[in-house]
C-alpha cells in the first residue's frame, strides 16, 4: 500500500515532466506554432514541446546524461515565468461567449480529463506497454541509448517512449503513461477548437468531451502505448495543412512539417503521412511555392535526422526494418503481416473494406470494433453537402489513407491521425441536425445522452479501479493478470537472466529475455530452430533459466510440450526444477522452472 506522500511523489513524477514539455512548447509556440488561444494553444504547445523534448532526450541519453524527474523540474523552473504566457487575441470566428451547453460540456470534459490523468498513474497493465514500451525505456535509462540485442523494439522509432525517461529514471514507471494521457487531452483540445470553428462552441465542446469518452481514448490514454501521440501529431499536421489551404501563412506549413517529423520519430510507418499532407496542400486549391515546400521538406528531414542516425548506428540501416536486406528484418515484416491478417481475419477486398469501416462503429473484433464509438458514423455523414475544395481535398486524402490502413494495419489504434477528423465531421453533422427543428434537436439530445451515459459507464468501469489502484498497485496488478503475477513470483526464484514466453516484462524482478520472436527479433522458440543453435544463442544472451507455461499433464514425465526444451531435457542440457511449486498460468497451464546447464 502506498502512503499519501508516496502518491504525491507519483503524481509529481507523472506531472512535472509533462509540465516541463508544455512549457518548452509554450516557449517555442510564438516562433514555430500556429495562432491559437485557450485549450487549443495548450494543445499546440504540448505537441511542439513533446516533439522537441523527445529529441533533446534522445541526444542526451545517447551520451549517457541522466535525466531524472528533477532535471525536468529544473527545466520547468527555468521556463516558468515568461511573456508568451499572455493569452492570444480571441479569433473573430469564435464569436459570442460560450453557451451554457458548451460550458457544461467543458466542465464534464474537465472531469473526464482528470480521471484519465489519474488512471494513467496506475500500474501498466496494457500488453504492449508492459511487454516492450516500458522495458525499452527502462533499458535506455539503465545505460545510454544503444543497440539492445534480443530486444528488436530498440531498433524502431521510440520518440514518444523517450518522454517517459524522467519518470522511469526516478523509479516511477507507473507514471510513464501520463504522457499518453497528455496526448488524449491535446487531441480533445484540437478537435474542440476545429469543431468550434466549423460548427459552434457547443458542438466543439461536445466533440472534445466525446473524444475523451471514446472507447479508443479510454483504452489507450492510461497506457504507455504511443498511438494517441502519433495521432495527435498526424492530426496536427493535417489541421495545419488545411489551415494553409484556407489562406493560412507559411508558418502553418512549418508547424505541419514539425508535426510530420515528430510523428515519424514516434513510429516509422507514420512517415506515410508526409506524402499525404504534401498531397493535401498540392490539391487543396492553394499550392505553395516550390521554395516553401523545399524549405519545409528540409526542416522535416533535419528533425527526423537524429533518429535516422541512431537507427543506422544500432541497426545498420536508417530505415530498419524497411528497405533493407537484413533477413531478420524481412522475416519480422512478414510476421507482422501475418499478425495483421490474423488480428482482423477479413478478406482484403472491397466488401472487406466496407466491413472494416462498419466494424469501427459496431463489430466484435477486439482490435477494431466499436472503438471510435457510434457518433462518427451516426453524425459524420450528415456533414456532407456543399463543401469547399479544401474540405473535399481533406476528405479525399484521409479516405485514401484508409486503404493502406485496412490492408496493413487494421487495428483501430493505427488510424488515430484520421479519426479526429471523424469527430470534427460528427460535430458539424450534429450541429446541422440540431438546426433542423425541435424534433431533430430532441432526438439528437436523446441520442447524445444515451451514448454519453454508456460511454461514461464504460469509462468508469475501466478507469475508476485504476484510480483506486494508486493506493494498492500490487493488488490491482494481481487482479488484472493473475498469471503474470504468478510468473513474476516464479522469475524471482530463478537464476537470471530468465527466459519467459512473452508477458509483463516490466513487472519482472530480475533481468528477463523475451522468448517471443516478435519481441526478441532473433529466435523462434519452437521446432523451426535447431536445439543447439537456440541454446547457444540463449547462452550468448546470458540466459540461465526459463519459466514456461506447460499444459496438463504437468511435467511428471519430464516433458514440457516445448520442443526445444524437451530436446534439451533429453540431452541433459537442462533440468526441471522439482523443488519449486508450479504456480498457475493461464487456463489449465502451470508455470515450470527450467534450469539450463
Amino acid at each position: 500500500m502506498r502512503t499519501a506522500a508516496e502518491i504525491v511523489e507519483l503524481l509529481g513524477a507523472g506531472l512535472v515532466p509533462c509540465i516541463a514539455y508544455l512549457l518548452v512548447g509554450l516557449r517555442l509556440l510564438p516562433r514555430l506554432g500556429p495562432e491559437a488561444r485557450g485549450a487549443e494553444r495548450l494543445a499546440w504547445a504540448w505537441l511542439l514541446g513533446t516533439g522537441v523534448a523527445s529529441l533533446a532526450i534522445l541526444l542526451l541519453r545517447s551520451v549517457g546524461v541522466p535525466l531524472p524527474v528533477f532535471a525536468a523540474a529544473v527545466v520547468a523552473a527555468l521556463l516558468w515565468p515568461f511573456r508568451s504566457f499572455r493569452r492570444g487575441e480571441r479569433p473573430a470566428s469564435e464569436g459570442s461567449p460560450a453557451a451554457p451547453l458548451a460550458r457544461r460540456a467543458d466542465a464534464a470534459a474537465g472531469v473526464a480529463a482528470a480521471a484519465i490523468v489519474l488512471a494513467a498513474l496506475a500500474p501498466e497493465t496494457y500488453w504492449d506497454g508492459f511487454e516492450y514500451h516500458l522495458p525499452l525505456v527502462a533499458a535506455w535509462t539503465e545505460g545510454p541509448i544503444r543497440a539492445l540485442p534480443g530486444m528488436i523494439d530498440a531498433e524502431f522509432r521510440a520518440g514518444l517512449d523517450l518522454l517517459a525517461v524522467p519518470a522511469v529514471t526516478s523509479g516511477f514507471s507507473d507514471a510513464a503513461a501520463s504522457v499518453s494521457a497528455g496526448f488524449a487531452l491535446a487531441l480533445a483540445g484540437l478537435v474542440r477548437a476545429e469543431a468550434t470553428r466549423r460548427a459552434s462552441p457547443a458542438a466543439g465542446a461536445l466533440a472534445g468531451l466525446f473524444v475523451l469518452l471514446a472507447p479508443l481514448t479510454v483504452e489507450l490514454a492510461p497506457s504507455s502505448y504511443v498511438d494517441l501521440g502519433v495521432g495527435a501529431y498526424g492530426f496536427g499536421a493535417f489541421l495545419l495543412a488545411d489551415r494553409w489551404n484556407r489562406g493560412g501563412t507559411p508558418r502553418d506549413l512549418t508547424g505541419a512539417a514539425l508535426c510530420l517529423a515528430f510523428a515519424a520519430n514516434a513510429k516509422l510507418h507514420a512517415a506515410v503521412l508526409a506524402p499525404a499532407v504534401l498531397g493535401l496542400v498540392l490539391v487543396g486549391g492553394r499550392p505553395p511555392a516550390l521554395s516553401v515546400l523545399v524549405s519545409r521538406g528540409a526542416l522535416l528531414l533535419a528533425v527526423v535526422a537524429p533518429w535516422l542516425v541512431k537507427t543506422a548506428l544500432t541497426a545498420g540501416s536508417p530505415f530498419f526494418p524497411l528497405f533493407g536486406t537484413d533477413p531478420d528484418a524481412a522475416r519480422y515484416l512478414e510476421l507482422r503481416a501475418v499478425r495483421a491478417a490474423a488480428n482482423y481475419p477479413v478478406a482484403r477486398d472491397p466488401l472487406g473494406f466496407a466491413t472494416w469501416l462498419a466494424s469501427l462503429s459496431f463489430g466484435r473484433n477486439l482490435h477494431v470494433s466499436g472503438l471510435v464509438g457510434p457518433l462518427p458514423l451516426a453524425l459524420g455523414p450528415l456533414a456532407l453537402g456543399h463543401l469547399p475544395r479544401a474540405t473535399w481535398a481533406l476528405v479525399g486524402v484521409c479516405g485514401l489513407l484508409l486503404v493502406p490502413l485496412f490492408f496493413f494495419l487494421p487495428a483501430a489504434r493505427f488510424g488515430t491521425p484520421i479519426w479526429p477528423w471523424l469527430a470534427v465531421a460528427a460535430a458539424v453533422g450534429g450541429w446541422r441536425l440540431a438546426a433542423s427543428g425541435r424534433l431533430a434537436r430532441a432526438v439528437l439530445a436523446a441520442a447524445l445522452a444515451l451514448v454519453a451515459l454508456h460511454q461514461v459507464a464504460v469509462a468508469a468501469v475501466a478507469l475508476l479501479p485504476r484510480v483506486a489502484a494508486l493506493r494498492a498497485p500490487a493488488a490491482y496488478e494481481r487482479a488484472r493478470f493473475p498469471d503474470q503475477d504468478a510468473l513474476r513470483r516464479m522469475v524471482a526464484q530463478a537464476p537470471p537472466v530468465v527466459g519467459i514466453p512473452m508477458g509483463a516484462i516490466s513487472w519482472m524482478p530480475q533481468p528477463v529475455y523475451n522468448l517471443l520472436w516478435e519481441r526478441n527479433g532473433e529466435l523462434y522458440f519452437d521446432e523451426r530452430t535447431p536445439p543447439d543453435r537456440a541454446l547457444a544463442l540463449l547462452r550468448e544472451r546470458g540466459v540461465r533459466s526459463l519459466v514456461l507455461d506447460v499444459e496438463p499433464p504437468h511435467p511428471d514425465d519430464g516433458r514440457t510440450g516445448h520442443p526445444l526444451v524437451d530436446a534439451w531435457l533429453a540431452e541433459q542440457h537442462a533440468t526441471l526444477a522439482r523443488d519449486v511449486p508450479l504456480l498457475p498460468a493461464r487456463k489449465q497451464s502451470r508455470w515450470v522452472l527450467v534450469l539450463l546447464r
Partner: protein
Amino acid sequence: MTERDAERPRPFAGWRRALALAWLVTVVLLHLAARELGVSLFP
C-alpha cells in the same frame, strides 16, 4: 459572415431530416447492441 460560416451545411428538412434521424438512431442502437450484447453482423 466568415468563410467557415459560409460553408456550413444548411439544416435538413422533410424526408432528409427523417432519414438523418433514422440513421442516427439506427447506428447508435447497433453500436450499443454490438458493445453490450455482442450482437453484430460484423466481425
